[in-house]
Structures are given as structure tokens and as C-alpha cells.
């Protein structure tokens, strides 16, 4: 390894991008760059990853990243990651994944949790640490398994078991055990229901969809584009250096390259069926439950240059948002629409100043409602406090290599998928190109971010 380092430094310097000194002396933070990413193909729930745990998948994704960038045995500044559905034994999930990976065991790690924005939040957090000079390198990760989801015992049984563990005498123990009833033994699995409302994400989105009057046809069209775009990207080899197969899966299992408007139109609505307006959301224009993991390698320019590693994009800025969905004021998944204007204002940009828009397709209508909000004069004025509408975007720049509807959505892994793909798209597009990301999350939240070609 020492030999290869010495041979690489001299030659790699030539292509090193403008590197700012560390730490910066003028008070402005230095750049945090995306070196690349790696994910495993996303599987459908109950698919090829059915026996794989979050730790297994995150480790696999990490190992693929380490292999791609030749980081075996290397001490990375920090690895941050998480999962939305998490076993209690996975309290230190990311660190455990690091210990099982080819990275140096001296690599520290911490868990992040922000529902479906977990991956984004991990990326933003690490980028900021790199910008501040606290880290030279970081790996952000996210993983989720709906196939290996934690099953918990019923509250009643849990209480009894806890009492049992506290019982001191045999009599107390017997008394605790005697309280167990057969119906206590039924396990409770996690749902995608919002804890505060009991409505599933799809049911919530159905309310927003109805409120904005998004048509079935528009949703199906977006879903079809997602599949076709993702299939085209695979055929063009776009994912050859973004993805490492796992458990014999080489492409996202949910991908249906041959889907058509006719096929999508045949599907029965599954959400919003109890509303006054016709239900429009089907399994075809909603994201399926998925299993998968993703990772993104972030670094300072210097760190990447020393290793002759590519620099695809910089993480420019990010903003989180949240809506009041509990009192029915806003849609559960509309926080991205609320956060983007703040992000744009801080960076002196308009909504049209982007070459790519990556809006996470939790549901086709989530994306369409976001766009509708930005196009609505009234909403932008009254709810977002703007002077007027942000306006429409060029739809040909939206999710150009597909998104969650086709790829699937293992909750915490989606941020990493999007950031790695967008960074590569920006690098291919060339200097000056810019992308906007919006990933909505449970709890009425979202993280939005700007990436620029490095």
C-alpha cells in the first residue's frame, strides 16, 4: 500500500481540483465533496434480502464502496448512518457495520435517525463537519429492511416481562408470569402509520392528492417515466460504478422496464378509497416496501486528491422542513415544498436555476403536489410567505434517471441513492451544473439540498 501511495501522489496532483487550505484562514468553510457512492440493488420486501439484516446490508454496501475506492484498511473520519426500522439490538448499527467491513476498525461511526430523510441528514451532517475542518473524510449510509423488520411483543406482555425482570422473590416472579394471557403473545409489527394520527403514509398522501386534485393519469405518467428512465440508465451502464450486486440481485427488483400507461391504468386504487373524490393512488404510482442500503463517500478536496479519487460534486447547502399535518393544516409529505424556498433564498437562487431536480417519489402524487405548491400563487403567498409562486420547473430535468417509484425505497437508503446518482449526473454534465434534492419523511418532515458539479 505504501508503494502505491508514493506512486499515486505525484500523478494525481495534476488533476486535483482547486484545493483550499485546511483549515481555511478567511473564515469561510471549505468545500465538502462527493467522491462517489455505492449501494446494493433495492429489493422488494420479502425478496432476495428477506433473511438479510440491516447490518448485513449496510456492511455489504460499505464493502462495495471501500472496494470501489480502494479504502480497505483505511481509517475514515466518521461513518454516519441509520435505519428507520431498527431492532433494539442495532442501537449501534453503523459502528457494527463498520466493524464488519473492510474499513479500519479505528473508524468511528454514529447512528442518525430522521425517518426517510435519515440518509440525507447523515450526508448533510458529515458534509458540514468536513466544511468545518473537523473531518477529512466521511461515509454516509442508510439501510432499511421491511423484510427483517423488528417485531415487538404487545405492550401488556412487555410490561409483565419488565416486572418479571424486576421481581426479586419467586413469589413475585410467579405472580408476574401468572398475569400473561394468550392474547398477550400476539406480536405487533411496525406499520408505516404515523404515530400521532394512525393514518398510513399513503392515506395521508391521498388526502393531499385529493386536496390538490392530482389526476390518476398524471401520477401514472410520472410512475411510467420513473421506470423507463431507470431502465435506460441501467442499460447505459450508469449504475456500473454506483451499485454493487448483492444476493444475486444485480438491478433494482422493483424495476419494470416494460411498464406502460395501459398496465398502470389497470391497477386498483389502494389509498384514499374512503374519500369523497375518486381514489387515484395505486400500487403502481406508490413506492413499494423495499429492502436495501446505500453509502456515499464524502471528503475534503485534499483528501480526495491525495488518493487520486474523483470529485463529482460539492454539497453546497441543505435545509430541513416540517409541516403541521396533525391539525390537518398541511400535507404530511409537503415539507420539502416548504423548505425549498428558504434554501433558495439563502443561496440567492430561483427554482429554475437547476439542471436536475431529484424529488423523492414516495408517491407519484407527492412529487406532483410539490410541483403544484410551487406553481400555486396562493399557496406560496399564504402558506410559504412568498411574494408569489416559485413557478414551474422544466419537467425534463426531473428524476432523469428514475427515482423511488422504480428503484424502490428502503427508507433510510434513499438519500444516499439520490446524492450519489445526482453527483455523478452533475460530474457528467460538467462544471457549473447544479441539482436540487428534496426527500420527504415521516412526521411531516423533509430535507432538501443543493449539489453542484465540483
Amino acid at each position, binding site marked *: 500500500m505504501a508503494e502505491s501511495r508514493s*506512486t499515486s501522489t505525484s*500523478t494525481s496532483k495534476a488533476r486535483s481540483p482547486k484545493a483550499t487550505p485546511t483549515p481555511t484562514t478567511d473564515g469561510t468553510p471549505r468545500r465538502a465533496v462527493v467522491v462517489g457512492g455505492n449501494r446494493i440493488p433495492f429489493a422488494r420486501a420479502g425478496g432476495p434480502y428477506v433473511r438479510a439484516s440491516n447490518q448485513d446490508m449496510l456492511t455489504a454496501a460499505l*464493502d*462495495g464502496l471501500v472496494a470501489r475506492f480502494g479504502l*480497505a484498511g483505511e481509517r475514515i473520519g466518521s461513518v454516519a448512518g441509520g435505519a428507520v426500522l431498527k431492532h433494539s439490538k442495532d442501537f449501534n448499527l453503523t459502528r457494527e457495520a463498520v466493524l464488519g467491513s473492510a474499513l479500519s476498525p479505528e473508524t468511528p461511526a454514529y447512528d442518525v435517525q430522521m425517518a426517510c430523510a435519515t440518509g440525507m441528514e447523515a450526508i448533510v451532517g458529515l458534509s458540514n463537519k468536513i466544511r468545518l475542518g473537523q473531518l477529512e473524510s466521511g461515509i454516509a449510509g442508510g439501510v432499511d429492511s421491511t423484510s427483517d423488520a423488528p417485531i415487538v411483543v404487545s405492550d401488556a406482555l412487555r410490561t409483565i416481562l419488565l416486572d418479571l425482570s424486576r421481581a426479586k422473590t419467586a413469589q413475585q416472579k410467579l405472580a408476574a408470569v401468572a398475569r400473561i394471557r394468550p392474547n398477550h403473545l400476539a406480536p405487533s409489527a411496525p406499520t408505516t402509520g404515523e404515530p400521532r394520527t394512525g393514518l398510513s403514509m399513503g392515506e395521508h398522501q391521498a388526502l393531499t392528492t385529493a386536496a390538490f386534485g392530482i389526476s390518476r393519469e398524471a401520477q401514472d405518467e410520472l410512475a411510467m417515466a420513473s421506470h423507463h428512465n431507470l431502465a435506460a440508465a441501467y442499460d447505459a*451502464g450508469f449504475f456500473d460504478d454506483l451499485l454493487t*450486486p448483492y444476493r444475486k440481485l444485480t438491478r433494482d427488483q422493483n424495476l419494470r422496464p416494460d411498464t406502460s400507461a395501459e398496465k398502470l391504468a389497470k391497477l386498483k386504487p389502494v389509498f384514499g378509497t374512503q374519500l369523497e373524490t375518486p381514489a387515484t393512488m395505486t400500487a403502481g404510482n406508490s413506492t413499494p416496501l423495499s429492502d436495501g442500503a446505500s453509502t456515499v463517500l464524502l471528503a475534503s478536496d485534499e483528501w480526495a486528491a491525495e488518493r487520486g479519487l474523483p470529485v463529482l460534486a460539492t454539497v453546497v447547502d441543505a435545509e430541513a422542513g416540517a409541516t403541521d399535518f396533525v391539525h390537518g393544516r398541511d400535507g404530511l409529505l409537503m415539507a420539502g415544498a416548504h423548505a425549498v424556498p428558504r434554501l433558495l433564498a439563502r443561496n440567492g437562487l430561483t427554482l429554475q436555476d437547476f439542471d436536475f431536480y431529484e424529488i423523492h417519489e414516495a408517491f407519484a402524487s407527492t412529487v406532483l403536489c410539490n410541483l403544484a405548491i410551487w406553481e400555486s400563487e396562493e399557496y406560496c403567498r399564504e402558506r410559504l410567505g412568498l411574494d408569489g409562486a416559485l413557478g414551474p420547473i422544466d419537467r425534463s430535468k426531473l428524476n432523469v434517471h428514475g427515482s423511488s417509484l422504480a428503484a424502490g425505497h428502503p427508507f433510510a437508503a434513499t438519500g444516499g441513492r439520490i446524492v450519489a446518482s445526482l453527483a455523478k449526473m452533475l460530474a457528467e454534465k460538467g462544471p457549473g451544473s447544479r441539482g436540487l434534492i428534496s426527500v420527504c419523511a415521516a412526521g411531516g418532515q423533509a430535507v432538501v439540498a443543493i449539489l453542484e458539479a465540483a
Partner: protein
Amino acid sequence: MSDSYVNLVNSGFTKTLAKRLGLPRPAHLRRHRQGEPLVPGPVLVVSDAASGDAADAVAQRLLDWDLDVRRHADPAERHGAVVVVLTEVSAPADLGAPMLEVGSVLRGLRPGGRVVIVSRAPEDAGSTATAAARQGIDGMMRSLAKELRGGATGNQVVLTGTTAPTAPSALGALRFLLSARSAFVDGQPLRVADGGAEPADWERPLAGQVAVVTGAARGIGAAIARTLARDGATLVVVDVPAAGDALAQVANEVRGSALQLDVTADDAADRLVEHVRSRHGRLDLLVHNAGILRDKLLANMKPATWDPVIAVNVTAPLTITEKVLAAGAFGDAPRVVCLASTSGIAGNRGQTNYGASKAGVIGMVRASAADLAAAGGTINAVAPGFIETDMTSRIPFATREVARRLNSLQQGGRPIDVAEAIAFLASPQAGGVNGQVLRVCGQNLVGA
């Protein structure tokens, strides 16, 4: 993958039984382990009368390697190796004395012992009698190899031109054939010209070299990557995207980097060059290991079974080598090693496509040797015989049993054996080996 027969006939009751029944008893082959002696006992250096000085010079170099060198045969001694220097023979009659001396010590040759003959190329001979003598050595060596037992092998270093037996390339080849690294190389003449250099460290001859191995996710390719890494190289391992998970494991194991690449893609060479240039600045060793099989009788052959075999096995190595050369991405002393096959030499039923591709590789290696030489490098091929891999483990039992015993060592080779030969051809001391095909087949009867 494992050959349990070898274990059976070498241990316990089944060993006795096999002896009584006169069953073939393949030996456990001596394989390289760091820190173990180069040869398992004293080395006897023998020569014909005219080659005495050359033999003395060789013996001196062997002493430099801390070997226990003998110049006179003692039938009571148990030798680890015999080096026969016949560089100056001028007539077939010159062969008798030295070879009978060799014969006197063969019974005492230790398990895993070596007989290496150093001779000169017949076509360089000044007289017909010399040519006859030199060619005679070839047949003699092949017959001797078949006589040896206990995992011992017989091979030949054939010096071309005026190459001295003590030239770095000649000694490099000799050392390889003496060592455990050549465990499955048997009955082979290896042609060596001047050139090459002695490595600073014989245990890490590839230190500082940047190596690319295609088809490295599993089997022989993974073994090549591990072996090159063991010898000090920095690895870039390549395989198709679909094999990416296994490839990542190999990359991380050898602390290299993985490049998911279909070698038949139009931009394969460009992506390869971009990767090695950005990460390491250049490329020193290029191993074209990626290969596929689509066996069909020619009568049943379709484009779907013919074309990919040609594209992966020979067109890709051709194109990539040319493009890497043209891009100037090679270092100062590039080494290209291709995977040929005994099927490319002897042919195999149902493998017209594969045979064409592998013989094509041999043609390519020979034809491009001059280009590589001009760039300060070499290009060679290794032709494996029956190797115990995932691929051969799928051959039906009876066919497999026959195939793996059809050689002088009476067993299949291991991926590491192929990898060792490649690591040798990639090394600085192999600089005098160019345009050659080295068989790693245990002296397979097929195409011998």
C-alpha cells in the same frame, strides 16, 4: 473443488490400501509459503563436460541464494533439486554422461523435488549435430518429467540467442522452476532471452507495481489478484458489474480497488485507463484473465454461443492492450499476461468457439511481443490444464476424475498454480520471457 482422492491416498489406512492395489498415488504438491526454503534439500548441479564453466557460474549464483549446492552426485544423498546445465552440448552423444549422473540420484529426490535443465535453443545452433543435441534435450526432459513421482517436476530453461545462463532472466526462470511457485508446471520448456532484472526482494518482486486483473471476482482471477498482491503489487480488480459483490470482497481482501466493467464494452479501455491513471498514475501489469465458456458442438452452434466467447476471450484482450498502449498508460516495463488454455493448443470437442478464442490469444501474444518489447515490456500467455475451480467442479464426476488424472502429477491444479505462473511472468526477473505460452497443466497428455 477439492480432490479428496489425493487426501485418501496420502493418509492412514487408505494410503496402505492404495499402495497394495497399485492405484495411482498423486502427491500433495509443494506450494509456496513465505519463509520456506526455495527447495526441499541440497541442490545438485550437473553438466556435460563442455558446460562446466557455465555450471560453476550457475552453482555460484545458487550459493548466493543460500542454497546447499553439490557439484558431484552422491546416490546416498537426498536432493531437493537437480540443475542440469547443458548449454554447451554440441552432439547428441554429449547428453549421456550428465543424464546418467542425474539418473543415479533420482531415487533419492525428495518429495516436491525439481529437475531443471538449462539449455539453448536448437534454432540458434551453429551445427546440425548441436541442433540435434539441443532438440534431444526437449524429448529427454519431457520423458524425465513423466518418470518423476512424489510431486517432483522436470522442466527446462531454453536460452535463446547468446543469453548467459547467469543472465537475470535465465536465473529468474530457473528460480521459478526450482521453487514451489511452479508446483503444477511440469514437462515444460521455457524460452528465455536476455533482459529482466533481479528484484530487490525475492518475496515481493512486484512491490510498487500497479496491476490490473480482469475477471478477478472469483476462481483463477481472484487467485491471481491475491498472488500479485502477496508479491507486492497494488491491485485494480475488474469484473462485470453483475459479479460486483464477489469482486468487492476480493478488492478489499487485497486492499486494492474494484472496477465494475464489461471488458467487451466500447469504452472499457477508456474507463480502465481513466481509473488507473487517476488512482495510480499508470499501469504496470495487465492480466487478461476474464474468460467465458459456451460449449456446443459446432453443428449446434449459434451466434449467441459463438460471439460472446470470441468477444470476451480474445477481442477484449486485443482491443484493451492496443488502447492502453496507444494511450501511453503503461509504466516503464509493462507486463501483459493472457490466459490461453490447453484447449487452444490441443482442441476439445464442443469447444470450437473456445478453442478459437484461446488459440487466438496465443497468436495475439506471439504477434504483439515485438510491440510490447518496443515499449520495454513483455506479453505472454499461461495455458492452464485441468484446474480445480467452480467451473470444473460442475463437470460430471467420471469425466472429471479422468480429466484430472490425465497428467504426470495425476491431479488437477489449483487456481494458485496458474496465479503463480502469472506472477512470475509479471515479475522483473521474467523480463526476458516474451511472446511465450507457459503451460500450467502438470504435463497434461492433451496437446503435449
